[in-house]
C-alpha cells in the first residue's frame, strides 16, 4: 500500500466504491483499477475488514431506568413564554398605575420615594434577567442547527 502509484486515479473513489456511493461509470473505473493495482486492492480489502469489524461491534446501552424523565416538550415551553408575557404585562400595568397614583397623590415625599424606589428596583431586576436571557439566546450555537 505504501508503494508509489504512478497513475492519475482518485484514491478516494475506493471509499465511494466501498460505500456504494458511485455512479455506474465510476464503479467500472474503480473495478478496472482494482484489477490492475495490487496496492489499491490491498487497501480496499483492509478497509472492508475495518468496516466489517466496526459493524460487528455492539455496545451496551443504558437501561430505561438510567434515563431521566422525558425532555421538556414544546407545550411547557409555550406555557413558560405565556407566563413571561403575562408577567411583563402585569409589571408594566402595575408600574404605570403605581407611578400615576404616586404623581396624583398628596402624600409625603418619603412615601413617594419608597414606592418609586421599589418599582424601579423591581423593574431593573426584571430587565436584567430579560437581557441575560436574550444574551444567552444570541450565543446559543444550537439555535440555528442545520439552518
Amino acid at each position, binding site marked *: 500500500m505504501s508503494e508509489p502509484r504512478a497513475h492519475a486515479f482518485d*484514491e*478516494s*473513489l*475506493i*471509499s*465511494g466504491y466501498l*460505500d456504494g*456511493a458511485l455512479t455506474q461509470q465510476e464503479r467500472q473505473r474503480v473495478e478496472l483499477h482494482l484489477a490492475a493495482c495490487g496496492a489499491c486492492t490491498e*487497501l480496499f480489502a*483492509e*478497509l472492508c*475488514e*475495518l*468496516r466489517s*469489524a*466496526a*459493524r*460487528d*461491534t*455492539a*455496545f*451496551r*446501552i*443504558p*437501561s*430505561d431506568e*438510567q*434515563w*431521566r424523565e*422525558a*425532555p*421538556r*416538550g*414544546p*407545550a411547557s*415551553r*409555550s406555557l413558560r413564554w405565556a407566563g413571561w408575557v403575562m408577567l411583563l404585562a402585569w409589571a408594566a400595568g402595575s408600574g404605570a398605575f403605581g407611578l400615576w397614583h404616586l404623581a396624583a397623590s398628596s402624600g409625603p415625599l418619603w412615601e413617594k420615594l419608597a414606592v418609586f424606589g421599589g418599582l424601579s428596583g423591581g423593574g431593573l431586576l426584571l430587565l436584567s434577567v430579560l437581557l441575560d436571557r436574550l444574551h444567552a439566546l444570541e450565543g446559543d*450555537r*444550537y*439555535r*440555528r*442547527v*442545520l*439552518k
Partner: protein
Amino acid sequence: MMVSVPMIVPSPASAPPATAGDGDLVRRCRAGDREAADALARRHRRGAYLLALQLLGDPDDALDAAQDSLLRLFQTLDRYDDSQPLRPWLFSIVRNRCRDLLRRRNVRRSEPLDGDEQHWRPELVDPAADPHRDVERRQVRRHLWRALADLPAEHREILVLREYQDLSYEEIAAVLRIPKGTVMSRLHRARKQLALRVRDLLGPTASAGEEP
C-alpha cells in the same frame, strides 16, 4: 451465529413504535402531545447515546450528552423542517454537544476498555463460529476502538457516522455541515489513518498469527 447478549438488545420499551413516522411525531409534539414526545425520545435516545459514546468514549459522559442533546432537540423542534429526516438534525446536536464537552474538559476521548468492563465496555459480539477467527476479529474490533480514540476529531466524527452509525453521505454532510462532495475524500483520508493505526496496533500479533 450471532451471540445474543441481553444487555445490548433494546428492551421492548425502548423499541420505536412502528406506526408513526418522525414527521408525524414531531407535528404531534408541536401540538403539545406528551405521548408523542415520549415516543420520539424513546425512538432516538439509543442512537444519540451510541453516537455520544463513540465520540466521547466514556459511558457516563455519553449518557449526559445524549440526554442534553434530546433536551436540545425538543427545544429546537419548532425550527426543524419536518419534511427532512430527523436523525441528522439530532446527530448534529449530539456532535456539537460532544465537541463542547471535550473542549470544556480539555480532554481527549477516553478509553473505557480499561475501565469498568463489567458494565460498560463495548460488548464485542462475533458472528463467526470458528473460535480462532472469533478471537482474531475480537482483537481487530478492540484495536479499531482504540485506534479511533487517537484520531483527530474531524476524522473520528466522520468515521463514526459512516462506519458505526451507517449514515449516508447526504446525512453525514448535513450533520457535519460540509459539502456532500467533501464527504468521500475526508472519509477516505480518515479510513486510511485508521487503517494505519490499527495495523500498528495489530502488527506484532498479526505477524505472529501468520506463523504456521
